[in-house]
């Protein structure tokens, strides 16, 4: 059968999951470490009438890196940093290089990746496919804006090079293209100069959604990063805490060589030096329910009432999701999903007041709420708006699936009626109809044309692609 090594290359039938452990799909997995591996995967797919999806770290919350019943090209071991120039800050990487590898390479030389995700485990191939954003999206845009050049293999077998000038349509299409146009084979990025391993962070409370969004909007221009935590369980809708951070200017840090050191950046693996964090998620489990989260959120808000400023390493500020390894396990058997909506600044307050109230009314509060400030970009499948985003984590259980599904469909309606957008490293339930409405028919048509050109036989397909473009 397909598993025989000679017959079917080196495929392993594998049950893969999304990051939230809420969705599983079995696929034939091939390890890709070279361009030849990509070519032969396409040949195999064509011969066996199967589809292919690339998968890096598998950190998307939805079905973006799943391809049930088809071939999954695992690029996570294709991960050499090919070239690093500490004078220009340009770095060329293989697609499986993670943000973790990247920052640990460039930070000791006084550089930092201009855009990073909330976890450092993501791969650059995946980051480009979904065109990730960070807490500085309002200023630096998505990661795509810092790509100088990439090379890729198209399903036609063509090997191409793209930059904002060269093959520009493919450059702006493949970055954000959800991996459906081709497979990245190398990525050249421009890093950002930093003058200290530390950031200055200001933390202050916001009592309601209006002041929450106002604080994000007003403070963003004065900071390099801004992010809000939103207490999703409180009836004071939108109360929370803002963290805004600034780089240190040249000379502010008297001894940057010391703060650049990796040992001052990496997250400790033990609490109080003894308690290993790897088992912490086990102890969080009893709190991951409506009552427990209400208690934790309330306590967190009370603590956050104290306005304060402090200095924090880049590693600690950016990678909140890595503080507790495997924290997503604490959501139990059914796992979790994330629902992130992007809204123009004019309608955000109105819409989120409605949906947060709806979630409380349905007794299905989100367990985590995070807000950010955004600006538009010119990539083809863009999720950005001149406004804000709100990311909500929901626990999934056998009992709540149906109710949660209809609630999220309700959310979708309210959001697209108010000019909102969604992000497909996150949302797992958004349908093809909704997708067509918010991208707009013209964009979808443009994407389909590009797809037809790069992939005339339809070899690249993921479960996500079938869901939103099927």
């Amino acid at each position: 059968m397909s598993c025989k090594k000679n017959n079917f290359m080196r495929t392993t039938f594998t049950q893969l999951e999304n990051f939230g452990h809420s969705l599983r799909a079995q696929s034939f997995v091939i390890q890709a470490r070279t361009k030849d591996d990509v070519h032969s995967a396409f040949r195999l797919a064509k011969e066996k009438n199967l589809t292919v999806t690339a998968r890096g770290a598998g950190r998307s919350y939805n079905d973006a890196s799943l391809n049930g019943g088809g071939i999954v090209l695992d690029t996570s071991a294709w991960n050499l940093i090919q070239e690093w120039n500490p004078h220009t800050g340009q770095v060329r990487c293989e697609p499986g290089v993670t943000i973790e590898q990247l920052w640990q390479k460039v930070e000791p030389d006084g550089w930092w990746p201009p855009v990073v995700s909330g976890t450092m485990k993501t791969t650059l191939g995946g980051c480009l496919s979904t065109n990730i954003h960070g807490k500085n999206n309002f200023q630096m845009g998505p990661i795509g804006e810092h790509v100088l050049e990439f090379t890729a293999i198209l399903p036609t077998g063509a090997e191409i090079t793209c930059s904002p000038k060269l093959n520009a349509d493919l450059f702006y299409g493949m970055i954000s293209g959800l991996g459906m146009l081709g497979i990245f084979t190398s990525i050249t990025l421009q890093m950002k100069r930093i003058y200290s391993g530390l950031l200055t962070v200001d933390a202050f409370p916001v009592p309601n959604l209006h002041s929450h969004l106002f604080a994000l909007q007003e403070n963003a221009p004065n900071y390099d990063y801004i992010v809000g935590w939103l207490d999703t369980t409180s009836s004071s809708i939108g109360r929370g805490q803002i963290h805004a951070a600034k780089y240190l200017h040249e000379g502010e840090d008297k001894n940057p060589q010391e703060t650049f050191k990796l040992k001052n950046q990496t997250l400790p693996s033990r609490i109080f030096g003894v308690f290993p964090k790897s088992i912490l998620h086990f102890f969080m489990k009893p709190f991951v329910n409506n009552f427990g989260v209400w208690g934790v959120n309330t306590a967190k808000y009370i603590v956050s009432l104290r306005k304060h400023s402090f200095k924090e390493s880049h590693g600690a500020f950016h990678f909140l999701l890595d503080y507790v390894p495997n924290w997503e396990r604490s959501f139990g058997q059914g796992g979790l999903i994330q629902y992130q909506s992007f809204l123009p600044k004019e309608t955000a307050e109105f819409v989120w007041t409605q949906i947060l109230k709806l979630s409380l009314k349905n007794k299905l509060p989100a367990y985590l709420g995070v807000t950010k400030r955004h600006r538009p970009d010119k990539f083809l499948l863009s999720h950005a708006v001149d406004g804000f985003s709100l990311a909500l984590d929901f626990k999934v259980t056998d009992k709540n699936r149906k109710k949660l599904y209809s609630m999220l469909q309700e959310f979708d309606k309210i959001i697209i009626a108010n000019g909102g957008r969604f992000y497909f490293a996150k949302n797992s339930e958004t349908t093809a109809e909704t997708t067509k409405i918010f991208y707009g028919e013209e964009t979808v048509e443009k994407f389909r044309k590009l797809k037809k050109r790069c992939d005339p036989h339809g070899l690249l397909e993921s479960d996500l692609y079938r869901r939103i473009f099927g």
Partner: protein
Amino acid sequence: MTNQTASPSTGKLAPATPLNPRRRALVIGASEGMGAALARKLAKEGYTLALISRQKDKLQALCSELNQKETVAISYPHDVTQYNEVPALLQKIVADLGGLDTVVFLAGVNFPPGGIDKYNFEYDKKMVEVNLIGAMAWLTPIAEMFHQAKAGQIVGIGSVAGDRGRVGNPGYNTSKAGFATYLEALRNRLTRHGVNVLTVKPGFVKTEMLKAAQGGTPFAIEPEKAADDIYKAMQKRKQMIYTPFFWRYIMFVIQNIPSFIFRKLSF
């Protein structure tokens, strides 16, 4: 390629999402009796199904019945003794369903020799070819896949007839005993890899096959009852069940009848 994920007559399968998770099952021997009853039960419980049977028309009819509201089942006409068709068909099914996590093998034939003084090699051969080798042709590549995936469930329908060699139908007893032993061996191989192997031993079930049975058929149950029992055992990831349950006690007694007595009995 999207359109090929479902057979032309049935349209597309609904996508699986965290809030609409779909388990994917392959039912081999699905066109009637216990197989059809189990297919209906699994469809009702939210499974996406690939259905195999050599009876094309009955299979089509079952599919159209299951797909009334939305497409949940795809039919694959196939005779399990066409062993060389299995690898390609299995790959197609996995691609069409978008994965595979449950396989139920129910295909079986029963050709009694026609009396306790009759012998028929052709019948015996046919029963072993379908009930045992047919099962091995399918479950071997599936076991290999589930072994790699470290997940999945295999359900094999044996029979109380496999628990003891009796005077009436040596070939059938052998095929079912062999199947039960094969399943036990798979269980011992695969449990450590997270795969569950369930052996189901039905007593008498009111199906077409029962009509061929010789002698009395006490405690016969409807196939739907058997399907419910099988479904429950699947959910609990049991190793072995009798359906209905009391056959366990009957078979315990029968298995312990000493040979010197059993030799004199005529059932």
